[in-house]
């Protein structure tokens, strides 16, 4: 038993998949690769306006002023083919990519019988799933791939062909004995077999109109008169020897792409298309019980350059709103040098996350929401101004770097910490071998940050000031934050580093108490005098 999914006007449907509202309009598809561009596929509305295949665009426009002409898009056809195969694969593991827009499915092993009334609802569901991807499909069910193909073309949207009583074997129960469900292929017109035109003409002159009438003539008799070409027609409708399928597995890549007719300069049309892409990709993954773990966004620019960005989803999900918001938040901050001409969104699938947390471990309630908030904070404050601080080994005061807050789970953190310790030890051992200092020395000679009881509130950058010294000790401070005498001092603390490169620095630090009772940290360097912060 076989099923064939047939998508009529496949190239046109592939192009209109992302603008389903246009399917009700008069739209025609032109193949720009043909020597003379002519219309190759049409919507019913276009046909109703008097347009037909083979016309040039200008001839078609003369007949229908409202006709929308679209170019054929191999990229979108490729995406539609992927959807077709992935959908079929979700229903049966034995699938064949028979032709563009045609997929044959082997039903063996799925537990169906010829007389199974569940077959038609099953095929109907297949068509419904494809309709979710804006692909109108017809499904045919029959004993052989060729008969199923005949049924698919006649389906509306599903047609299950039964086997005629003459061709029944004793073992085979007639399929769909109920007349409302089944129909035999003998009633199909002879043209459905797509015979060579000369043979079709001869058969018409003989008065042969249907396949049943052709079969009644007998294979040998007709072959004797019309040659071996007609044998092929008999073989196609023979239920006895179904051809083996060339089984394929659909690609595990989930991508949606579009080339814009007009250059896009604002974010709104981009978001409109992206929303549809996200919906489609999410549904495609949902079909095979997966969720989105990563998005790769590619924007083709009119200058020939390409903008690419990878979005890792903190907690893989299939929720369209969350996924779309993540892209939207980023795109609202993107500025490109030239307009956008193409858009591609690739989804990397993964299993839905299931994780057991520690008893005393707190986790983020909604990691995806947090990732979006973090993106907004980064857009607000700047890329290096929102995140988790990490200390940098070295002597220089206020040395740190910002990393993106992932807020990993405790287990992950432990693993990383172990690795970090190992690296740290290795580096420390190496430093010891080289005769240099360890990686966590006191920042300034005579002072250790952890020993300072009061915490420093820093001025970034340090405030330029003027410090007057008497007997080597600061006595007067002139700065933006304080002007007046210094009553008590602590220091000096000397520090220097990076003497081997251009970032070399040297400073003399003092902790001071001013006449108003404030406690400051000041320092002197080759660049002048500064107030580094206030103790608070």
């Amino acid at each position: 038993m076989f099923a064939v999914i047939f998508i009529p006007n496949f190239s046109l449907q592939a192009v209109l998949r992302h603008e389903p509202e246009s399917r009700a309009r008069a739209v025609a598809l032109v193949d720009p690769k043909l020597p003379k561009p002519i219309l190759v596929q049409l919507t019913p509305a276009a046909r109703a306006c008097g347009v037909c295949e083979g016309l040039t665009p200008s001839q078609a426009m003369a007949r229908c002023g409202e006709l929308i002409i679209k170019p054929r898009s191999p990229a979108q056809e490729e995406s539609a083919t992927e959807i077709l195969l992935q959908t079929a694969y979700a229903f049966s593991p034995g699938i064949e990519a028979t032709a563009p827009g045609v997929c044959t499915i082997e039903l063996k092993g799925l537990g169906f019988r010829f007389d199974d009334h569940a077959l038609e609802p099953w095929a109907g569901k297949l068509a419904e799933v494809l309709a979710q991807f804006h692909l109108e499909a017809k499904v045919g069910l029959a004993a052989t791939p060729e008969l199923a193909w005949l049924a698919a073309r006649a389906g509306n949207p599903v047609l299950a062909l039964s086997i005629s009583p003459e061709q029944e074997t004793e073992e085979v129960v007639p399929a769909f004995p109920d007349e409302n469900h089944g129909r035999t292929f003998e009633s199909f017109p002879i043209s459905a077999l797509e015979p060579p035109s000369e043979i079709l003409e001869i058969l018409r002159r003989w008065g042969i109109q249907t396949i049943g009438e052709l079969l009644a003539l007998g294979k040998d008799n007709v072959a004797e008169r019309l040659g071996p070409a007609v044998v092929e027609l008999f073989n196609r409708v023979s239920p006895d020897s179904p051809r083996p399928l060339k089984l394929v597995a659909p690609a595990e890549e989930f991508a949606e792409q579009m080339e814009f007719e007009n250059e896009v300069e604002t974010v709104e049309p981009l978001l409109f298309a992206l929303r549809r892409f996200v919906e489609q990709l999410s549904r495609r993954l949902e079909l095979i019980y997966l969720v989105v773990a990563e998005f790769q966004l590619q924007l083709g620019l009119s200058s020939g350059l390409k903008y690419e960005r990878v979005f890792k989803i903190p907690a893989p999900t299939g929720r369209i709103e969350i996924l779309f918001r993540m892209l939207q938040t980023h795109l609202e901050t993107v500025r490109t040098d030239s307009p956008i001409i193409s858009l591609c969104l690739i989804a990397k699938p993964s299993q839905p996350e299931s994780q057991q947390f520690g008893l005393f471990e707190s986790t983020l309630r909604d990691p995806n929401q947090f990732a979006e908030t973090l993106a907004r904070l980064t857009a607000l404050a700047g890329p290096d101004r929102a995140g988790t601080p990490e200390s940098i080994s070295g002597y220089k005061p206020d040395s740190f770097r910002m990393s993106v807050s992932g807020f990993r789970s405790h287990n992950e953190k432990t693993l990383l910490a172990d690795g970090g310790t190992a690296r740290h030890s290795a580096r420390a051992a190496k430093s010891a071998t080289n005769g240099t200092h360890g990686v966590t020395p006191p920042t300034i000679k005579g002072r250790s940050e952890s020993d300072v009881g009061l915490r420093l509130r820093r001025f970034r950058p340090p405030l330029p000031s003027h410090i007057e010294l008497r007997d080597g000790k600061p006595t007067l401070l002139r700065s933006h934050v304080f002007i007046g005498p210094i009553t008590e001092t602590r220091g000096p603390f000397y520090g220097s580093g990076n003497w081997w490169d251009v970032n070399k620095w040297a400073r003399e630090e003092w902790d001071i108490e001013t006449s108003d009772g404030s406690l400051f940290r000041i320092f002197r360097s080759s660049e002048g005098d500064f107030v580094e912060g206030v103790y608070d």
Partner: protein
Amino acid sequence: MPAANIIELRQLLAARFPGLRMKADALSAAKHAFWPTGLPQLDEPLRGGLARGALTEVTAEQHGSGSTLLLTALIHQALHENKFVGVIDGQDSLDVTQLGEDLSRLLWVRCRSAEEALKAADLLLRDGNLPLVLLDLVSNPAAQLRKIPATTWYRFQRLIEQTSTVCAIFTPRVMVAPAQARIALRSRFSLAALEREPGELLSELKVEIAEARHAGESGELESQFA
């Protein structure tokens, strides 16, 4: 159907929108649990710590009163409890090098102005993922702070009152009108304090619970001095 009087209107609204709150103190007092800070001089007068789902204002009117000491103590306490902490640094003044090694649960937003800090706070409070959000405006110039509309704080209050987020706002003067608790820092440390342990200094931190308004006791003011 038009409501004949205010009672009917309230009943109609309550029926249509079950989550709607009619009165300022209608929120269940049970929702207001407290997060213990580990500092007895704060936890005891505040009935167990900083209120969840409410704003707490910490005012430090002068330098050296211990606002950074308290801020880092709260960060340490939260990190020690494996909690996520968001610190919105109004003037990029936090010295992270003195916070310790493992800051993987700390989100630090380094803002340039009070306006930027308020936008960041709005985002984080709306997010609702972080159990502790600290907004530090102590170093921001008075001119920036004067421009903050009072409605901002009410908006923040509305944002977190249905959550269990603890939000402490460090300011140089009293400015957060809907704060459930107001803590004034009155310490004055000398240069000798730099050579003492932070734990010792924290135990000597002078705080004044200037005003505490508890849920279900609207209008009641409490004053305690430590």
